[in-house]
């Protein structure tokens, strides 16, 4: 019956991608211990997918309420910039030897960055839930202005961070695995628990499917929608910290550029409908992994950069079509013999 589980198809797609890697890229699955931690392509993919997974988790809930948040990338830039500026540090030349000085205690910097992200979410939430603007337009405003704000903070410069502990977030290792994976796991588990063990999941779905009925049943629809946008931005905020920490600098111009599109793509590849309602958190995580694996595969196979986009789009088309119920019916019609074997 596993075949009918909603998670099956995204998983299958991921497996097929990995299979292609296995055949095409020698040593793709090779893992070794280097400097006391695991090292290899798979680790890279997971590590690099971490921000995308976080964004996708947040986006899943927004999409479940029939919304969309295209300001994720801008939020990433803002939170990353705030953190980098506060932790910051400058290099001073001291008799020809470089020395690093930190500015603000790291926890304050992190809290401020998350605060900025939550503020972004509150802004979006207020526009969507409070004013009733259409989500895509409401978040378009922050998408445009947010990156500008981040650039304003940095004067358009890349802020390099020289504070070692800060790097742990995005490129540190714990028990041999990248620390970012623990963060992602924690966010995922907390979110999943929130959805399962509280009524939040039910409420979000109800609001997404039939907001009028939900309100008449006594749900605080506006509060729920507001919360969802704040949550999404908070996820983006963490993603921003991770990206900043990983490249040891905040690039307000480019950090998280187009991350929103990838996040939305991940959510859909994971089997959540953009029409709202039923959602699939685990699916979104797998969707994000699919995207990152695909990107990584393109790099590893050594395709010329001109064909990147074509390959990516073709794969997305194929995955989407193969996931659709209609395709399944067609397939069954075309290959009736396979029915018994596959449907089990």
């Amino acid at each position, binding site marked *: 019956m596993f075949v009918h589980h909603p998670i099956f198809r995204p998983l299958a797609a991921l497996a097929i991608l990995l299979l292609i890697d296995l055949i095409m890229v020698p040593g793709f699955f090779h893992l070794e211990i280097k400097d006391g931690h695991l090292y290899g392509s798979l680790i890279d993919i997971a590590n690099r997918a971490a921000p995308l997974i976080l964004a996708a988790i947040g986006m899943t809930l927004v999409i479940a309420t029939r919304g969309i948040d295209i300001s994720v990338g801008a939020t990433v830039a803002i939170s990353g910039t705030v953190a980098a500026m506060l932790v910051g540090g400058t290099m001073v030349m001291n008799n020809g030897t470089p020395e690093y000085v930190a500015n603000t205690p790291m926890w304050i910097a992190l809290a401020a960055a998350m605060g900025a992200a939550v503020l972004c979410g509150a802004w979006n939430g207020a526009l969507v839930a409070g004013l009733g603007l259409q989500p895509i337009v409401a978040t378009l405003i922050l998408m445009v202005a947010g990156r500008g704000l981040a650039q304003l903070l940095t004067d358009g410069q890349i802020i390099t961070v020289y504070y070692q502990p800060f790097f742990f977030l995005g490129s540190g290792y714990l028990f041999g695995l990248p620390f970012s994976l623990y963060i992602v796991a924690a966010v995922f588990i907390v979110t999943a628990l929130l959805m399962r063990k509280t*009524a939040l999941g*039910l409420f979000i779905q109800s609001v997404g499917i*039939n907001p009028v*009925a939900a*309100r*008449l049943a*006594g*749900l605080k629809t506006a509060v729920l929608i507001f919360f969802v946008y704040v949550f999404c931005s908070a996820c983006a905020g963490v993603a921003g910290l991770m990206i900043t920490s990983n490249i040891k600098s905040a690039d307000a111009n480019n950090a998280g550029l187009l991350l929103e599109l990838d996040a939305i793509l991940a959510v859909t590849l994971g089997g959540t409908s953009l029409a709202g309602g039923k959602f699939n958190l685990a699916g979104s995580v797998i969707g994000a992994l699919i995207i990152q694996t695909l990107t990584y595969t393109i790099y590893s196979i050594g395709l010329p950069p001109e064909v990147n986009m074509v390959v990516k789009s073709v794969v997305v088309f194929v995955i989407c079509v193969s996931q659709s119920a209609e395709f399944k019916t067609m397939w069954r019609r075309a290959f009736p013999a396979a029915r018994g074997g596959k449907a089990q």
Partner: protein
Amino acid sequence: MTMNSSAPANPVLELRGISKAFTGVQALSGVSLNLYPGEVHTLMGQNGAGKSTLIKVLTGVYAPDQGQIVLAGQPIQPQSTLDAQHHGISTVYQEVNLCPNLSVAENIFIGRYPRKLGRIDWASMTTQATALLDRMQIRIDVTAPLAQYPLAIQQMVAISRSLLVSAKVLILDEPTSSLDEKEVDLLFSVLRGLREQGMAILFVTHFLDQTYAISDRITVMRSGEREGEYLAADLSRVELVNKMVGAPTAAPATAVAQADAAQAPAGGSRFGAFLRAVGLGRKGALQPMDLEIGQGEMLGLAGLLGSGRTEAARLLFGADKADTGTITIDGKERNFSSPRDAIAAGIGFCSEDRKHEGAVLELSVRENLILALQARMGILRAIPLKRQQQLAEEYVKALGIKTASIETPIGSLSGGNQQKVLLARWLVTDPRLLILDEPTRGIDVRAKQEIMDYVSALCKKGMAILFISSELPEVLRVSDRIVVMRDRKQGGEYPRGALDETTVLHVIAAGDQHA
């Protein structure tokens, strides 16, 4: 079974051995049906018997798993509604299927616009639509969007739309469930006219009166099978009910009603006042009115369509905000700015529009059922799954909800069963006042009886109920007190027994004269 063979001519449409299964449900098994020209053929059966499914198969919405559709001797396989229309089969579905954003006139004419020089002739369309609705004695602005009119008007629009095509076969799935008596009469006179012209009409209803008022032939369905086909003249009401439910009923519906009426308490005075609304009104929707409901009282709200009953209920529930007036509960003044406030004060509201305001279609029966309760308990205190299942099972049994399981999405239940789930949603919250707006719409006789009995029992235990229904006899039968509405204002208040159907109509009509 008495298969009557005095058919006038050859059937214009035959269904032979139609079967259709959904995952987990055999909705139809081997159903046959004959439609003769110049006849009204009524399809009867309990909720979930498969009536709507049969109609959808017939009109190309679903493909049958087995069986044949024969139209005028030719087997056909309608692929879509449009295809069916081309074959001369025109349909009004149970759930209103129109476009809320388009104007009334467009909803009638879309797909077959009057044209002038190749472009749509809007002026002529408006005139024709107005004339068409005029024939059904509906006078509205046909250029306004459909969404602005109440469900009943929408239903009439859907019917006018189907009348427009020169069809051989007209199918109506519970068209009367949101119409009042006057409108039903109108509809029937239109249908009789069509019958005269030789059209074959397939009609689904749960109302026995209507069945006998118009049908020539009756097919009874039970659990996805055809129980039998009868001439209306040959089948008594009691027989019909027996055949629908598959076992002799304990007592005919009318008898129960009489017995109930006999032991009715005398007046409203025995109830402790629970809710009192003074001067409650909203501009353009309801003129200020007073209302008082006591604990354990069933207050009926009668009136014609659009008389403002739903509006009054929505104001009481905080779904719309009142411009004027106050609401006091247990002597304390309360102002509801949202349904949440009302729910917190112990009020429940079962809306008349289940598709848009009630059911959360993709969620399961269980989730729909506990939604209001969970909303009241808040996000953090999730009801344990065990308890949810227990509640769901309990109410599925108590209300006789026909569903494959409690995890089935409510959207795949039949219309009547969805209605029951939504009723259960409020029952589990154990409200002190339950507002029921047309709760029995689209529910079969037996279920209606069961539900009203159930509700009455709760009422006796102290729950206050505000009961809104377009079925006057029902309102008169069950209410302790009746408020008659007309023209969006209060028309008068009467204790039980002070009114009968004719007097209520008189009250409403009198209002019309004075206005």
